[in-house]
């Protein structure tokens, strides 16, 4: 169980978070059909660092993007996503 530093809540146990998908697999609303399906159905699936989308589902419910190494679990960057919020 990792410890993830939520940009809103600070360091929290991974049990509070849910993984969504990688940043490179976000199908934007304006994507053309073929591009959309390629995005949805293929993954770099890096054996190293990748940018992932997680949600602090059982905490502040906000979404975040974190760069994590899939072997060491080192989290090198983490940022908030979503509507602008007050501090």
């Amino acid at each position, binding site marked *: 169980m990792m410890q993830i530093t939520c940009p809103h809540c600070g360091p929290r146990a991974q049990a509070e978070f849910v993984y969504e998908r990688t940043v490179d697999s976000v199908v934007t609303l304006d994507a053309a059909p073929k591009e959309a399906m390629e995005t949805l159905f293929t993954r770099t699936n890096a054996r190293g660092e990748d940018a992932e989308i997680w949600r602090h589902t059982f905490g502040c419910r906000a979404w975040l993007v974190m760069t994590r190494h899939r072997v060491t679990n080192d989290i090198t960057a983490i940022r908030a*996503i979503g509507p*602008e919020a007050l501090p």
Partner: protein
Amino acid sequence: MTGPMITFTFDGKTYQAQEGDTLAAALLRSGIGLVGRSFKYHRPRGIMTAGVEEPNALVTVGEGGRTEPNTRATDVFVYEGLVATSQNRWPSLSFDIGAMLGLAAPIFSAGFYYKTFFGSAKRWMFYEYFIRKAAGLGNAPVEADPDRFSHRSAFCDVLVVGAGPAGLQAALDAAESGKRVILAEQDNILGPSLIRDPQDLDSAWIETAAARIRAKGGRILLRTTASGYWEHDLVTLSQRLCEPGQKPAKGIAQRLWHVRASEVILATGSIERPLAFAHNDRPGVMLSQAVRTYVQRYGVVPGKRVVIATNNDDAYRTAHALKAAGADIVAILDARPSPTGANGGFPVFNQALPVSVKGARHCLKQVSADVGGVTKVWQADLLAVSGGFTPTVHLHMQAGGTLEWDDAAQAFVPAMSRQNVTTIGGAVRPDPIFPVKPISNPKKSFVDFQNDVTLADVDLAWAEGYRSVEHLKRYTTLGMATDQGKLSNMAALGRLAEKQGVAIPGAGLTTFRPPYTPVTMGLLAGAGAKDAGAHVRRLALYDVHAAKRPIWQPLGYWFRPRAYPVGGETLAQTALREAKAVRTGVGMTDVSTLAKFEISGPDSAALLEIICATSVSKLAVGRGRYTFMLREDGFVFDDGTVWRLAENRYLLTGSTGGADRMAAHISYVRQYLCPHLRVSAVNVQEHYAGIAVAGPKAKSVMAALMGEEPPRHMSTVPAKIGGADVLILAASYSGERAFEIYADAAHAAAVWAACEAEVTAQGGCLYGLEAMEFLRIEKGHLVVGGEIDGRMTPHDLALGKMLNKAGGYIGASGLSRPALSAPNRRQLIGLEAISGTIAEGAMLITEHGGAPLGHVTAAAFRVIEGGSIALGQLEGGFDRTGEELIATSPTRGQTARVRVVAPHFYDAAGERYRD
């Protein structure tokens, strides 16, 4: 050390132990040498160690649901009434038929089972039956566990594992510098090694140190083993609150700590190694430090005539301790070439290695050694061995660390750490030793005692090509027993390296994995063992329903009333009665669990048109509409209704089972994909309790409740019922004129009561999910998990016409893939039985033995006329109306001849919704 005496039993006989004894100490005190039988050859085994590394002395402790098989006698402290039983023997420990297997040992070499027992699978199962009976060790309990287990989290600045001198000092230093400290020690006392070797440090120091740690707010946990090192410095500690088999004082037998530490200090010391020689597994061969522990800590002297075999200085301390306790040291076999000055007046032989021992089942009699090429023999009842020290690096390695080779100690010590962990004390500075190579008969020289792996097995694996250390492990089962190779791995590695012609580090290591010592499954399960970790989700109106004793139906984690039987009715009878009431009069049911989202803000419609595949924006205030949602891959994943409550406020409903999935989906779309939208999407599933009132009389019930004309079909109004504010949605799932009443769940009981009174007054009744199924199937309404099974497109479900022409909804791209509009897809159809009763889930075939063209998604009976009907999915189904098929369920022996019809059996035109 003298405490009060307590009694325990071993194999039915009563013995005395001194308070503070481990079971092993108590058995030795009582002169018991034979404690168990080995896994494969059933060889007699005694007590070899005084710690968690014990491979041999495994017994079953406790009775009934508290029975703990395979308990190390060295790792259970005797309590009054402890019941211990030996294992893996029949009929008795001293006369064990299974020991005959030992005679056939030459056949049962490593991996023998891969090379024989050929023939059919059934034939293997015949042999396997006997193999399985012979394998295993203790017997598992058959009762449920009467005790509870707790999971507790803790956070600290410094976690120190091991309360030896190194760990105690580190914990003290950290506590005194103002840090939050946790100190965990697997033993039941602090500084056990200091009790074993009192000359090292004043034992009063232990108490002072502990008191100072506690005074600074530090937490000291005894009988607590750090068993797993996980990601980001999370360490799990298993704490025993009572001994194996013992009844806990407060109902909790053990506690599992999840400790997140900023820094972890491992002061886990080292484990002494045995030596390899013939019959080195016999009772009476013990580790040197263990012998010393029994003498110094427990006041038990495990032998009177003792030979000591060593390759280092530490064993001389054992000689002194034994001598002081009155034992006779007949020889010290020191592998080193010449005296080291530790001699202490004992009969020391240099260049001396034990070659074999002899003894009876329960004791040792004779030790033979090679002394500089000459064989010498001693009569002795105890052989204490020390082959050096293996640092306890398990946790360091679990944390992703690396090791380096310490040549002087012939041991691996911690090198790099991947996490925030350091190892200190004996685990980084093991005593130097003199490396020795075994010279004994490899077939009788054990490396893995519990799994009966000998040097010869290592040699055989090598010869057969199982040469990587991992293949060696798996082919011979070395290191796979309950001790996980704590004693065996180094000996085997040495042998393997020799074969490979490399130094030990070149041979590689197997992976260290949690747990450090075995952990009780009930402890890992925690409170979840009772409810599978899944609390029941209880309806807001639970009490109201429970009072009526309905038949409950699980749905996800919810339980909902399935039917309300009266007077001994069966489920089927009840459901039919309830459904008829709805068709002919009025019924009411609880629909609280439906997914519900309140969406407000100027961009509400924009958000909804992304989530829903139907058009929403033209919905007038006060009106509602059926809708469905697609996954990104274009398949339908949920359906429901959408209502415009106010200019900028909507309510979206969906299925119960899909509620959590939908909540995540909406959040993703709103927060991630569309952060710019001016909208608030709030999950109000649990805020609103919902009551559906349905039937031809529903309107008059509602009129009575509201005191005004109820809204027309697919309209919504706020109202007051039973004194509470409610929202009324005129929607129907049953096919009758119907209303859903939503009320604040905290006040819903009053609303329910008012509704029930009126429904009853108008001759209606409650109905449950089973009746609801009948009604909706007959009407041809869909259900998520049935017709909507995650593999159907809107077209397959005949919903294509409702798709938002403007596009822009999620799933449009996926839906455009060719296979989603291929001919002959499975499509929604209705079925009516020509003969027989249609089974839900049955396969649809054209002839017996034919391949299924589809299946029955839901089956029911026509509510009023009777007759078996169903909904289904059928290849090219839209074009098959009128065809006759067979609905077959071979698993239930149920077959019906059916006709394909349109998927609505009741009021296809929707006349009944009109006022």
